[in-house]
């Protein structure tokens, strides 16, 4: 039997291995980085979901971040310093994300970290960012921040949270589509934000949720969940994430046919997926929430055209020259805008290095909002310094000829709700 060599290494080989590991750690490349100079450049930690269930978002978040950084550097950087991205893959995994946050702090010595999307990853990482006193700008839609669950180091300066989105959508849904709603949502934090806030919001409109169906984001087969949809349903409200989203929508179409209830989806169910394929023709006439319209609209702003071109996305929301490579257009603007929000705060504080971290964060808290511009192509933002959360316009689009046409744009006031916390009362 040769198994002993495999399973029970000798003392000598263990010692040799430990020696090797020590030599590796002492190698100049690894520990040297921990002493990296700061002050000459602004170094930003960018943990993206390169792999795992958020990979399609991660790819586009990275592309958007690189485009915005190149543009900022072209325009002279921040306070005369060039911006450098340190990109790490967090695997859409909460545990790995915390490790990556520690790496950014201890090894890469970054000035701030930004760009996490999936809410369960944010939920794990934000407390660690606070402990490490690391400014952390999320692009997540998670309501946990504005509900007071995190700390003074965490901000969401661009994308709105699910609560905002849902309370501004609910009146439109109940007025135009129906009052008896079945919810289909992913079975984790992000889905619960939808369930809890939408249930409250539709009841405030005199409607009701007749069934709610939670599906794990790693699921690959969905038909078996659909019998739970009651016949009394007038509207199916669906929001799904993960690698199986296309299968989810296809099977929903097979199950319902064209006679089914009205459909209102969050575009998450089809982010990075081509709309104009025959299997999705049943979506014609159905409605979607969009954080930022995927298809260039008739009244497209110059800002949107500029942003599209810089990020390399065509008028259908796909990569330039590759119509099958569809972007996560409704979400990825938040990376672009978050970088510009950080730039604004750093310029207000005349930020030169990590010693001025607190000044930079206080500057961010004092910001009232941003006007629509090339830096904020999705549109105007109102920023709440107490809850660290941004508020902005939402779009409801209808599928017409296999494309999304914006039917209704909410006002920013529609997305407001009373403050649930005040981070400025916390210490740094």
């Amino acid at each position, binding site marked *: 039997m040769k198994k002993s060599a495999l*399973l029970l290494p000798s003392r000598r080989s263990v010692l040799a291995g430990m020696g090797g590991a020590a030599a590796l750690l002492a190698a100049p490349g690894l520990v040297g980085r921990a002493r990296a100079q700061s002050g000459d450049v602004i170094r930003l930690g960018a943990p993206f979901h390169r792999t795992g269930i958020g990979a399609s978002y991660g790819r586009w978040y990275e592309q958007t971040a690189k485009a915005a950084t190149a543009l900022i550097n072209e325009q002279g950087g921040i306070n005369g310093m060039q911006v450098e991205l340190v990109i790490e893959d967090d695997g859409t995994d909460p545990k790995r994300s915390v490790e990556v946050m520690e790496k950014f702090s201890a090894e890469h010595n970054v000035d701030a970290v930004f760009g996490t999307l999936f809410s369960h990853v944010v939920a794990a990482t934000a407390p660690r960012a606070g402990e490490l006193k690391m400014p952390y700008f999320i692009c997540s839609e998670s309501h946990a921040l504005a509900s007071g669950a995190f700390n003074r180091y965490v901000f969401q300066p661009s994308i709105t949270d699910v609560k905002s989105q849902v309370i501004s959508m609910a009146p439109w849904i109940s007025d135009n589509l129906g009052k008896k709603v079945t919810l289909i949502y992913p079975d984790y934090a992000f889905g619960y934000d939808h369930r809890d806030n939408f249930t409250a919001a539709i009841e405030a409109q005199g409607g009701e949720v007749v069934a709610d169906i939670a599906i794990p984001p790693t699921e690959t087969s969905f038909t078996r969940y659909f019998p739970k949809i009651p016949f009394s349903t007038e509207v199916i409200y669906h929001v799904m994430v993960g690698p199986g989203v296309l299968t989810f929508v296809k099977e929903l179409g097979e199950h319902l046919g064209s006679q089914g209830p009205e459909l209102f989806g969050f575009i998450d169910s089809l982010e990075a997926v081509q709309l104009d394929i025959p299997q999705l023709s049943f979506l014609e006439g159905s409605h979607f929430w969009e954080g930022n319209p995927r298809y260039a609209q008739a009244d497209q702003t110059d800002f949107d055209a500029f942003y599209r071109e810089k990020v390399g996305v065509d008028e259908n929301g796909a990569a330039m020259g590759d119509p099958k490579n569809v972007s996560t257009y409704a979400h990825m603007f938040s990376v672009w805008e978050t970088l510009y929000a950080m730039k604004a705060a750093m310029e207000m504080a005349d930020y030169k290095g990590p010693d001025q971290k607190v000044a930079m964060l206080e500057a961010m808290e004092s910001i009232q909002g941003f006007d629509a511009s090339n830096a904020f192509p999705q549109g105007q933002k109102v920023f709440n310094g107490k809850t660290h959360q941004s508020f902005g316009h939402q779009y409801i689009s209808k599928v017409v000829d296999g494309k999304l046409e914006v039917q209704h744009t909410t006002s920013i006031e529609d997305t407001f709700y009373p403050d649930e916390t005040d981070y400025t009362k916390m210490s740094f």
Partner: protein
Amino acid sequence: MDIAPYLLLATLEGLVQASVLTLTALGLSVVFGTMRVVNVAHGEFFMLGAVGAWVCAMLMPGPPWLGFVTALIVAPAIVGLLAAAADWAILKRIDYDPEATIISTIGLMYIIQQVVLMTFGPNAQAVDAPFYYTIRFPWFGYSSYKLFIVVAAIVLVFALWRLMKGSRVGLLMRATQYDKDTAQNFGIPVDRVYSGVFAVGAMMAAIAGVLVVPNQQAHYLMGHDPLLLSFVVVIVGGLGSIPGTIAAAVLIGLSDGLLSVFFTPTLAKIASTLLVALVLVFKPEGLFGKATR
């Protein structure tokens, strides 16, 4: 909805599940039955079949069915060769020692997963079904392709049955399974039989992967669930028993379909895992297995 349409949907879903499970679990079972190797990388062969189908669909011009038929031949062939190579390069060297094969196939699992991730990227890739037609029942619609999976699985299982029972190859496999040393004494090339069996087992999983992919999507992490369910089926059915594996796959598939539709998919998973625990405690040779010789 009355009870009847529910029952129809549950049965359809259960049958599709059972078909895919039968193919995947049979691969695992054949390998264990002949070689006494617990192949933890089995799910990755399933995933390679699915990814292979996607690559074929991308490279083949013309209608989707052409790419699909190509994939049905090419993907299992490549996976089979890879498995034979893994047998030659790894399993043979460690003398098929039970503990060592488990550890090394765990390693193989990670290697395959990461190579696919590095080569084809982390995105879920959709493959067009060879035909697209939705059967409309009065209460709900159902994809006709899913029913095709059931038919294909029955044909393939029958083919495997003929191979095992009616061919010289099957005879060699059964002789090796019965008594390896005696078989060797009678001049049966046990090494080559092992490589062949490992390849056939992997090919079953790969075919299941090709069949499933128009229905799901090809993704580097998709091998996990089929592996787990295959173990469930193989344990319930009795390790190494082909009729037991088929019966257990149908049992698990149908109960999964019924419990998922009438209650929740989570409860279905709990039930099948509980069944495994009960079988291991009260009838460790499996519901349909013979007591060990």
